[in-house]
């Protein structure tokens, strides 16, 4: 394959990954790393570097659209970004100390756990919020959005803020360690821990992913892991895909979204555990 054809193939693949990433709130990066390494033969470090740049592109593209529809809650996102950015910086610092296979195994197990919780909630269109968290009241972590599928305004308020903040720190830590946006964990924290509606969770996650990834990207850039001719087509492709994915997301019901989300998490969990056990390459 000629270099130009290679770049074109990277771009086309990134469009698809960006679309999926925007719909699922994953950021696309975690999809791209295995694709780039397994199917394109790109070194893992450069794949991670391109991934982290693409994650910023996805988040920027999708978040802008979500902000117009009030799906992203900027207040909640910025509040929790304190945790994710701190975690990302710490994670990047620890990356050279903790064996990567241990991290992959932990990530796989955690993703498997999130699959179980997603299965339990498969029929829940909107979370039932009965608790009132004083921290949510104090910081005004609440909002309203119009749900086109339900044809009504949906009001919501975050619960279990301290636990959600801790979970977000962990998500940021994984972002720094593995070069991913860790959108799955952000959605998990927002949806399952803080009991926000799934659409708000995915939209706010998309908004936060870019902020977290920017912190991690500085470390990758400093190490020389960001190859311009891999990162550029990937970032542009993902940006285009994210725009299409965002349009699709507004037309899907939350249960449909979760059904789409489930196999992705399952795939990631199995592949991560396999890698952690040394069964699926490094």
């Amino acid at each position, binding site marked *: 394959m000629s270099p130009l054809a290679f770049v074109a193939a990277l771009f086309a693949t990134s469009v698809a990954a960006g679309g999926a990433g925007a719909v699922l709130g994953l950021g696309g990066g975690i999809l791209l790393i295995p694709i780039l390494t397994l199917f394109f033969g790109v070194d893992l470090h450069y794949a991670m570097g391109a991934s982290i740049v693409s994650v910023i592109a996805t988040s920027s593209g999708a978040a802008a659209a979500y902000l117009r529809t009030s799906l992203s809650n900027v207040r909640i996102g910025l509040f929790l970004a304190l945790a994710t950015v701190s975690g990302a910086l710490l994670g990047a610092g620890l990356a050279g100390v903790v064996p990567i296979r241990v991290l992959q195994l932990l990530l796989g197990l955690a993703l498997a756990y999130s699959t179980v919780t997603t299965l339990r909630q498969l029929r829940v269109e909107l979370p039932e919020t009965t608790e009132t968290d004083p921290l949510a009241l104090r910081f005004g972590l609440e909002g309203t959005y119009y749900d086109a599928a339900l044809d009504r305004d949906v009001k919501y308020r975050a619960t279990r803020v301290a636990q959600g903040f801790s979970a977000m720190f962990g998500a940021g830590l994984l972002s720094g360690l593995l070069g991913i946006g860790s959108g799955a964990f952000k959605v998990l924290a927002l949806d399952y821990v803080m009991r926000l509606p799934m659409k708000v969770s995915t939209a706010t996650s998309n908004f936060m992913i870019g902020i977290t990834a920017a912190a991690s990207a500085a470390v990758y850039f400093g190490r020389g892991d960001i190859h*311009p001719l891999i990162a550029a087509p990937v970032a542009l492709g993902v940006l285009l895909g994210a725009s299409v994915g965002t349009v699709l997301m507004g037309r899907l019901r939350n249960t449909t979204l979760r059904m789409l989300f489930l196999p992705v998490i399952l795939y990631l969990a199995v592949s991560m555990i396999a890698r952690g056990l040394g069964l699926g390459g490094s």
Partner: protein
Amino acid sequence: MLRPSSFVSNPAPIAADTPVTWTGDPPADEEARVVWEALAGAPALRYAVLVERVGERLFRLDLERFGVSADVGFFRPFYDAHARRIVAALAGTRLSLGDRA
């Protein structure tokens, strides 16, 4: 340069004044050839000079292939880092590092 197949991800630090010489045959693979060309005509180069030359050649190669899209100064550190990784991968096989050089 897009699909590096043999380099050391996190090479151990090498002293900047370490002499480096080419010891093997002229290479067929592109990245090793860039190193070989950088050393061509010079009996030994200091490690820092070699890395700088290889980084510059890698950058020029991408610039020739992709034009202005590769000419973003922000990404320039990548090429030096990549050069260090390639040199580390060749050390001990095609490159000799140290006093014997």
